[in-house]
């Protein structure tokens, strides 16, 4: 069908289908152009080969037909640009859902892992300070004296999200530029040190369902670091688990820090 292009991973986000449609249209367009030009090109090679046409015609092609073709190409590009690409982009970066009805999470890239940070029940992220960073016990440098941080949940390379609910991910980096790439969700955003850049999307297919569709019990969504970030770039891989709301809540609860967790940091 016209609004999808083969070879792409099965889409698993609400906006993904729209992006794919654009991708499909532009690819069909260039494919058509290439085939048309290609056939014409081959025809010319055969028709005007020296042996068949020993004397060239000084004037060559008399019509200006080609300029119509060019105008056509330009128009098609304009339509795809104004009608699709720009609005779709604006939907990505401008109309964010309200945080109250979204799953909000911080993801911080580092050589070579993804730190995932949930605010916990209080919905507040604990404040962090680079000088508190400890590779083992406190990768994000959370401030133990900040109450907002007490119930926070921190995982490494393990992002869980509930299905059919908007997710807002605040992206940043501790060291160099990485890129938060989620192929199945058609999400990609560089994480720039010094900046916090949000992305939003709605996962539409749970991991379990995707496993059935692919009938591959092993299947998991992955975070693929898309930006060269050093010798470990190739292994900077995280996992995304899309769960039902219930399943997600259960997982969160299971991850909630036990009472003395705050101290266990400093043992």
């Amino acid at each position, binding site marked *: 069908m016209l609004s999808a292009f083969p070879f792409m991973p099965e889409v698993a986000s609400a906006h993904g289908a729209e992006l794919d449609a654009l991708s499909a249209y532009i690819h069909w367009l260039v494919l058509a152009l290439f085939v048309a030009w290609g056939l014409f090109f081959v025809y010319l090679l055969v028709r005007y080969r020296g042996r068949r046409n020993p004397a060239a015609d000084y004037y060559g092609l008399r019509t200006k037909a080609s300029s119509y073709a060019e105008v056509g190409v330009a128009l098609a590009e304009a339509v795809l640009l104004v009608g699709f690409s720009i609005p779709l982009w604006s939907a990505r*970066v401008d109309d964010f859902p309200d945080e109250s009805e979204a799953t909000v999470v911080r993801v911080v890239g580092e050589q070579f892992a993804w730190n995932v940070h949930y605010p916990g029940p209080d919905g507040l992220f604990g404040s962090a300070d680079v000088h508190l960073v400890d590779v083992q016990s406190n990768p994000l440098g959370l401030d133990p004296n900040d109450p907002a941080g007490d119930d926070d949940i921190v995982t490494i390379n393990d992002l869980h999200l509930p299905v059919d609910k908007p997710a807002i991910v*605040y*992206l940043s980096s501790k060291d160099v530029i990485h890129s938060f790439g989620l192929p199945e969700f058609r999400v990609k955003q560089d994480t720039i040190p010094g*900046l*916090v*850049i*949000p992305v939003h999307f709605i996962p539409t297919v749970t991991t379990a369902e995707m496993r059935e569709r692919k009938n591959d019990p092993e299947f998991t969504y992955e975070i693929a670091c898309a930006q060269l970030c050093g010798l470990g770039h190739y292994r900077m891989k995280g996992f995304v688990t899309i769960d039902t709301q219930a399943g997600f809540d259960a997982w969160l609860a299971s991850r909630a820090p036990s009472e003395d967790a705050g101290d266990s940091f400093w043992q």
Partner: protein
Amino acid sequence: MSAHDVDVDKHVRTYIIVFVSLLALTLVTVAISYLEMTTGPAVALALLVATVKASLVACFFMHLISERKLIYLVLGFTVLFFLFVLLGPLATEANQVGV
């Protein structure tokens, strides 16, 4: 330009005038910087004076005032591209998603 078609002495007189006005403008900029102004106007004014001085140098010492079209063309494009490299990054940063 070749020796014949210019009246050198007239040139020299202009050089002196330009020289004096440049020195004067230098003092002006410094003076301005002492009266306490908010950054906005201060920058604008300082750059204005600098531009005037620069164009004096360019027009008279570098004889741009009486240069060939070709040179104007080249410099015109150069200035344009300079504006691109100046404004492009600024505009993009102003339009940055996130903080």
